[in-house]
């Protein structure tokens, strides 16, 4: 199962551990399953109106910032992080 790293503040809010194994073949599925395991996570990670990752957040899958967001496919041994979306100058 994909290995999801939970940011420190989200751990405090939801009681989730720093890392959790979550089923799912896409980022969307992982977030939905994460919500079942730790209620409150989806509200932090997902913007319902945009149907997208929360603005300002980036999802990193296997070391790269995902360009497909919720649609990004993840594998059994994938590693996922949610980090600030960094722009540039």
């Amino acid at each position: 199962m994909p290995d999801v790293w939970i940011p420190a503040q989200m751990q405090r809010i939801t009681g989730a551990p720093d890392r959790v194994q979550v089923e799912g073949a896409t980022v969307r599925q992982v977030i939905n399953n994460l919500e079942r395991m730790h209620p409150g996570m989806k509200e932090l990670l997902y913007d319902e109106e945009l149907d997208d990752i929360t603005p300002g957040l980036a999802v990193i899958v296997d070391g790269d910032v995902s360009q497909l967001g919720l649609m990004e496919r993840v594998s059994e041994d994938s590693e996922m992080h949610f980090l600030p979306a960094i722009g540039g100058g």
Partner: protein
Amino acid sequence: MPDYTPNMVLTSDKEYKVVGTRPIRHDGADKVTGLARYSADLNLPGMLYGKVLRSPHAHARIRSIDTSKAEAVPGVRAVVTGSDIVEPTGRASDLAEGAMINFKFLSNNIMAQDKALYKGHAIAAVAAVNAHLAEEALSRIEVEYEVLPPVMHAREAMADEATLIHERLAAFHTAGTRAGGVLDDDDDSAGTNVANHFEFRMGDMDAGFAEADVIVERSVSTSAVHQGYIEPHAGTAMWHDDGSLTIWSSSQGHFTVRDHTARLVGIPVSKVKAIPMEIGGGFGAKLAVYMEPVAALLARKAHAPVKLAMNRTEVFEATGPTSGTEISCKIGATNDGKITAAEVHLIFEAGAFPGSPVAGGANCVLAAYDIANTWIEGYDIVVNRPKTAAYRAPGSPAAAYCVEVALDELAEKLGIDAIDLRLMNSAREGTRRPTGPLTPKVGYVETLEATKSHPHYGAPKGKRHGRGVASGFWGNNTGPSAAVALVNPDGTVTLTEGSPDIGGTRASVSQQLAEVLGIPVEDVNPQIGDTDSIGFTSNTGGSSVTFKTGYAAYTAAQDVKQQMIARAARIWEVEAEDVLYEDGVLKHRADDQLQMTFQQLAARQVPTGGPIVGRGGVNPGGAGPCIGVHIVDVEVDEDTGKVEIVRYTAIQDAGKAIHPSYVEGQIQGGAVQGIGWALNEEYYTNDQGHMVNSSFLDYRMPTSLDLPMIDTCIVEVDNPNHPFGVRGVGEVPIVPPMAAIANAIYDAIGVRLTVLPMNPGNVLEALWEKNGK
């Protein structure tokens, strides 16, 4: 004459015919002869001239605005205030590049609503038949202010009893990483000036510091500085009878201009065409819109085109500087130089609205090092200053200033060479970053080794000279991008791309197309398409264009290539798989009599199936991070405190330098901006929160007369996620200079400078303190 190579390229194994060469830029002649048209150069029949009334106070409630006397001035055609602009809710939305923007705050920044939040905040705007009448009308607008105490510094804003800048600001600590928004109507939480507080933790800090033999603690502060582009912001807007709007402006992303203007004037994006003009510098601050929506509002009221252009004082007072900061760190290491733990605390001033680059600082500050135990926290604080904007590697330079000075102290205490210490602790492919993800293929070690072996590093120092080194990291960025290649009958290619060209990217993108097609880059005619002429392309920022738009051009070229193979097969009556495309020549695999050049086939394209149009629409991942390492020699005048740069070398991984001269130019430009940030530049404000040095006479940026040649060394460790191995290059060179210079000053006079700028006054004060005066 130097006994070294001023600019060198440590070339990767792959060799190309066009990539890696140094052609003359396509837009060069127009730019040096004055033919190129920048934002304020546009003039339209019947065009009006706009001017903006700005707040004389850093913090004030707006009791009333009476524009009637201004409207009565003959020749005045329109007046707008905050009541004319769409004010969205505080819901966060997303910049295409990924940095968050909140449209309520954007709207309030472009035109104040109930409060003026910084000196220079736009209050109203006028359009008139000439600029003089517009200025006269501004003087007749009557604004009643209730002046409030300004909150100018982060620590003051964070205090329990601090005056609130936004009564309803929501602290978004809960979302972990994003900056604040507005409290919901039914939320009775107290307001705050702390828009965000986040942290990243890895490992066990107590155990890490317990393992250390030596611990260094360092605190620094930096002043707000401006990006300092030569071309002020300007924009022209014209409405059409069908309700559509055309905007001309220079920006770092005309799709952002289109999208943000549409939102703030309340029309669909399909009704807005944004036409990019040439840009005279941006460095991050032209990612935001300021003038375009106001010009559009004035033009709509006046039923005539309106041009708005800032002067230099407006640029300083009302557009994004980067943050003033307070940063502290604590780093522990064993006697043999292994860093066992590091913590960094970052406090960034966001300006009047949330969204400083503190997350960028946190992401970058320890990213190039392999440290098992780390703690990084960041604060985003609103103050009564102009809203900060991105500035070249946003967040990273100030953060690196603190940590890279601390590493110099650590190296000294341990008796280890400064580069060796960094090499011993350098991240490599597979190292876990403090923010969590694993490091991809990088060239950190190669760049440090190139620094150590550079002639400058081992050269004898001059009398009274000090030498310093520092490293800097930037992750680089990517995003969606589009390119279209039209094959012309004479064998040339017209390349339309979606990225505004700030740093020579017409050439670097064209080179990638030419390499694939095997044609001279001079046969490519690049142009920047408007928002109706090319697919959505994210901003020219994050050092992304040569990576992402180069990728789009590569894809378009591959499309052209496949179409040309099919056309040759049709002409020769063979199968397409029997046709080869090599170096701009189409060949039959078995019959060497069947050959045709790109130019010959281009001439036959129409009768063989119609025009050949190559398309590239991409959103590539994997923009490779890089580091830069700078070596600087300084001479310090201990009587005046003046610091002179006597030699400077910048070493940087470029992945693959598509156009080495422009990579060198980016490195040199970034280094010079960093030197200005280090030694001279600051927003100097009085006790009322007014900037008192808002001109280039008083805001001292370095010129060519102040500096030696900035020598460069390009290291090429290819990025596996790009067809030619490109990494972004434009931002990282501004990261190391402050720390490198501070370390050099210490080497020269034995004083650690912990406040920027390190101007003569601050140097003398530090010297006096050291000498007990």
